[in-house]
């Protein structure tokens, strides 16, 4: 599988609520390598049977941040609510796709210069409006409950970095697809369940029901975490291009963390550790609480500008996460 090409296609596609373009792309790719089922409307599961009875679930979320329309006025301006954590300060003059009866391009209103004297405060999303650019005919196309997504197309930067709107967590999805591709040609030591879950950004929901259905013996969540930059405290971030961020936290299984670190060191796969003191803010938090508990790990890919429409990621970091996970699976997971 061409990771860069797949990542671009996945990121450029919208995927929120009932807008499932990204899911469709992922599902098509996954079904080339694994037996695919769609569970409980919250996610996609791909299975590759292994040599033992144990099941390892590898999980990433398919949904992205966005907005939902809560009102449409007579002049074509929309009031929206956020789906996921969004920096309101960066919204003015940002373009979005409004998924109504047809998809139309909109623009977040910005305060005109003659009215912006003094400091503007960004308190709540309901203060900000989207110009549908449709004027009075907006109501013919857009209804409350319609979804709105960012709309930038991914672009290549220097080296192997690319920017795009939803590498969080389509990069994780890419890892799942690549692993499925690698194990479609060989039988893994244990059953693999690839879980592409929904509704992470609105409260780690899809992973809850999907994990219940899969009932794995162990699980590893693949997500993104903060990448470095001049204004970012080095203690708060990993370094882009320096490999997988292996999560260590009270909610993460210590043995999985240790084994991942050992494998990375032995196989000379570049890695960094990400130590957290409690919940991780990823699906690992919810997966570990499934039924009577699941031993769960977390591997993150460093990402700059998280939750913006120009997130930046390194393709080699994604490849290294794939290499690390491939080795971990080859090693039989926890049960070696």
């Amino acid at each position, binding site marked *: 599988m061409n990771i860069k090409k797949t990542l671009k296609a996945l990121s450029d596609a919208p995927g929120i609520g009932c807008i499932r373009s990204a899911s469709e792309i992922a599902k098509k790719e996954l079904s080339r390598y694994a037996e695919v089922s769609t569970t409980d409307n919250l996610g996609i599961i791909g299975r590759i049977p292994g040599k033992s009875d144990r099941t390892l679930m590898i999980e990433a979320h398919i949904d992205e941040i966005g907005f939902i329309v809560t009102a449409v006025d007579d002049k074509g301006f929309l009031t929206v609510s956020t789906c996921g954590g969004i920096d309101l300060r960066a919204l003015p003059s940002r373009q979005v796709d409004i998924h109504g009866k047809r998809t139309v391009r909109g623009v977040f209103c910005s305060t005109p210069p003659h009215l912006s004297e003094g400091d503007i405060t960004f308190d709540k999303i309901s203060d900000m409006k989207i110009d549908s650019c449709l*004027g009075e005919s907006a109501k013919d196309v857009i209804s409350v409950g319609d979804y709105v997504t960012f709309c930038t197309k991914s672009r290549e930067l220097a080296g192997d970095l690319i*920017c795009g709107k939803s590498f969080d967590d389509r990069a994780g999805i890419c890892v799942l697809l690549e692993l499925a591709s690698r194990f479609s040609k060989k039988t893994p030591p244990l059953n693999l369940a690839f879980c592409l879950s929904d509704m992470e950004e609105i409260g780690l929901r899809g992973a809850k029901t999907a994990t219940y259905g899969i009932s794995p013996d162990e699980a590893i969540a693949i997500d993104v975490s903060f990448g470095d930059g001049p204004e970012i405290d080095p203690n708060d971030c990993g370094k882009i291009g320096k490999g997988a961020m292996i999560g260590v936290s009270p909610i993460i299984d210590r043995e999985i963390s240790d084994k991942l670190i050992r494998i990375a060191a032995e196989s000379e796969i570049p890695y960094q550790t990400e130590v957290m003191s409690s919940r991780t803010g990823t699906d690992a938090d919810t997966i570990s609480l499934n039924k009577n508990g699941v031993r769960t790990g977390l591997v993150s890919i460093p990402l700059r500008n998280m939750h913006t429409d120009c997130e930046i990621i390194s393709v080699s970091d994604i490849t290294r996460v794939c290499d690390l996970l491939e080795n971990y699976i080859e090693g039989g997971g926890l049960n070696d």
Partner: protein
Amino acid sequence: MTDMIRELALLDATSGDEKAVRDHIISKIKPYCDIKTDALGNMIAFKKGKKTPAKKIMLDAHMDEVGFIITHITKDGFLRFKPVGGINTSALMFKTVLINGKTAGVISGKPIHLTKDEECKKLPDADKLYIDIGAKSGEEAERILTVGDRGVMVSDFTVSGKNIISKALDDRIGCAILIKLIEEYGEYDFTAVFSVQEEVGLRGAKTATYAVNPDAAIILESTTAADIADVPEDKTVCRLGGGAAVSFMDRATVYDREYYAAAMNSGIPVQPKSAATGGNNAGSVHLSGEGVRTIAISVPCRYIHSSSSVANTDDIRAAYDLAKYMIGYIANDK
């Protein structure tokens, strides 16, 4: 006309770096007129008509757009920059950019998750933003570009019903109208100026007007339309779909009263620019030499000076018609 605006708007031309737009315009107007380029890069084109009016008439549209200039490259390969022209920090934050027309980057900063309580309600200092082009070190970045290089925020060009959405509508719409006039209007002689450096202080128009030495001038512009949600009626300035906006006064110019009245009575869809805010090349043009009688015809534009300006094609048509009408009016004015 929309296709011509699309071609022009998708070119990058920060103030002082207008070559891409200038070359494109030359390729369009070359068959129709004599072209000169002055020391600053202004392009002055004389279009011969059937008749030579008693008054020498100049039309101006500026080629430059707002953007940024690279001021420093960090040892880690990030770029510090300053805005070129008036840009709100919101319009810069987390935007995809293109430097030198070829190097992609992202104006980056601290993600919302790492921003503490009150900090996330206020705009950051523009100095806290930086551009990430993917370079791993200062040396790598310096192999790609250098301080002093310019760039712009990128945008798609979208047609949505009667509206267009794009970067640089200020003032590529004016450029497109002026090109169209050169191609189509043949009644009276006029001199077209495609000027530089408007966004950094109406500079190009100063030297171009000196060279042309006109009796009367028509400025083709775009102007703030604040007809958006939550703005009271008296602060809207002008509205999309309301016709060409004609200025009576702004912060740089008190306009010729007679020309203003003639435009408002032209029968073409027009609206007053009903606020004395902003400014355009008229500020330089009307003070040139012994003074130049000047009118500004603007296309209303929402979210101006951002990568997502919105304008209405009926208004663009009206601005074109009004420019044509005003050439005739000035030519026949005693």
